[in-house]
């Protein structure tokens, strides 16, 4: 059993990581420096970062609200809502991109409205952020809901009887109890946002130096035989995600040992 699990993890997770690390570093420091020196590549990283930050903020705030509603409130259609939340996991990102085009693209339902305001959605940052948010909706919610369920409502009720307002209760009782689940959800959300290609490719147009994210650059790099730079960018993204997840995991262990 252990052997099978180890082999599975090694073959599917570790091997690609080792591969990308090898190719990323093989080309040497010169190429790495050169890669980060290119304005287009720096802009791509910047764009990826901006999209990630906005996505994480939006999904954290609304994810926690949805999770609270799903665990604390009763209303008709709650089960449907709970199922809908998982939809982005089931739908291919390419389809998500197409849906965005249908809504905001030429002749789309909302195109006229935003065009009148002078706001460009498609082939610009707004649509890229929008599809990335959509795709990473489930992560915070799915991490926080079980923690809230396990926590129960008694501590919150106790806080109310002691005079704490709803807001005080959330920040002083609920949030500290869900913080690890929430942070993990945020990390997964961030990693997903960084890695998104399909949906972003469709809505952005992948204009070099303008709407090209780091992952879109990687696609172009291989098209244009800039393999070495492609590997370096890929390695950077992979490392960022890994550090994020490992960081949270160790932080969590360390802190739970301390508190309890």
């Amino acid at each position, binding site marked *: 059993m252990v052997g099978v699990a180890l082999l599975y993890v090694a073959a599917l997770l570790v091997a690609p990581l080792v591969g990308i690390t090898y190719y990323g570093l093989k080309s040497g420091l010169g190429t790495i420096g050169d890669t980060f020196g290119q304005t287009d590549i720096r802009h791509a990283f910047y764009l990826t970062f901006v999209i990630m930050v906005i996505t994480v903020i939006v999904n954290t705030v609304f994810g926690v609200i949805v999770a609270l509603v799903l665990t604390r409130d009763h209303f008709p259609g709650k089960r449907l809502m709970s199922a809908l939340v998982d939809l982005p996991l089931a739908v291919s990102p390419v389809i998500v991109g197409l849906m965005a085009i249908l809504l905001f693209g030429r002749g789309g339902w909302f195109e006229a409205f935003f065009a009148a305001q002078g706001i460009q959605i498609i082939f610009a940052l707004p649509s890229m952020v929008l599809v990335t948010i959509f795709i990473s909706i489930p992560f915070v919610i799915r991490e926080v809901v079980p923690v809230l369920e396990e926590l129960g409502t*008694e*501590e919150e*009720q*106790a*806080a*109310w*009887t*002691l*005079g*704490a*307002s709803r807001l*005080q209760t959330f920040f*002083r*009782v609920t949030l*500290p*109890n869900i913080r690890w689940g929430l942070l993990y959800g945020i990390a997964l959300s961030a990693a997903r946002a960084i890695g998104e290609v399909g949906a972003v490719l469709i809505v952005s147009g992948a204009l070099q130096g303008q709407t090209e994210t780091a992952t879109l650059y990687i696609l172009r790099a291989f098209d244009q035989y800039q393999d070495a730079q492609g590997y370096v960018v890929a390695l950077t993204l992979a490392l960022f995600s890994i550090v994020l997840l490992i960081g949270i995991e160790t932080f969590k262990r360390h802190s739970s040992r301390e*508190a*309890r």
Partner: protein
Amino acid sequence: MAGSIEVRGLSKAFGTFKAVNDVSFAAAEGTITALLGPSGSGKSTVLRMIAGLEQPDSGSVIVAGEELTDASVQDRRLGFVFQHYALFRHMTVRKNVAFGLSVRRVDKDAQTKRVDELLELVGLAPFANRYPDQLSGGQRQRVALARALAPSPQVLLLDEPFGALDARVRQELRNWLDELHRELGVTSLFVTHDQEEALELANEVVVMNHGKVEQVGTAEEIYNQPATPFVAAFVGSSNTLRGVVWERYVHFGRSAVAGAHHIADGREAVAYIRPHDIEITAEAGAMSFPISVERRTDLGWAAKLHLRLEDGQGLVAQLPNDEIEDIRPGQRLFANFRNPKVFVEEADTPDIAGDQPDLPPVASQNGAGPEVPSGRTLTGDGSKRS
């Protein structure tokens, strides 16, 4: 600082289930009142409505003369203690106790002083910097109590405060709460399914069943003058004997018990007889019942005798060992019943006795403890007779 509690015509339904149905009672300033009843009787819902954690469908809640029915939980300023403590697990004992003061922005020095005072009072000063999961159940419940008392509430509401503790700690905490109440005098209302707990701690007991109040009275009244068959059966573990009324007596075969003066001749009646209200004699007296002894269970200072009447109905007597030393299974003797509580037989007249007084408290709320008196299962035989 204390206030009275009054509820008037409180009702609450969950869907089609009427959890609380027109409940009214009052608890005077500075007293301890128990809400006693089996699980599902609505007692916890009443408590939660007083606290504002549930909204009643109708009726009103009045604390210290102030109408609170529409006030928010926060504005009611009542202390509430939960069965499972509900301590803030990420805070130390000190922070837990200080919570009610800090959310109301009491100044820091006053907070520290009040928290120290309370930790001293509940005997947990050395544990101030521990986390809840480093404490025992009894200690946690004392923290919960200190936390509820910190903002100096006029009224303390306790929901099955000892329900999650083992028997020994439960008794200890009960004595301690009694002393604490004498010291502080804060009006307290607690919910329990344990009749012994209610009788021991409370000045007044409100007995509830199926969402309704069955009786309100002192422990003595509830025990000795039960107003309804339910109270007779639930408070104190009673034997149930079914018979027919004739000239103010309930007749079982050739014997009879008194106390049926309020019931017309010919009606079926139920007599509730407590296990220690049975006297066993070798000689027949004027009103004694011939019985056979089927089984004897020794409990140390006392013993339980499983008896059978001539008409087939069974019952259990519990008597001090020195009174019944020679009695053995198989013997044919006579029994006299003291203080039978007689009620007209109705469709829903309960057979079930309350918690067995000397058994360790069990999770079961209905008195269906691990050891079921054989008498109970045989009440069916009695009704076949007629």
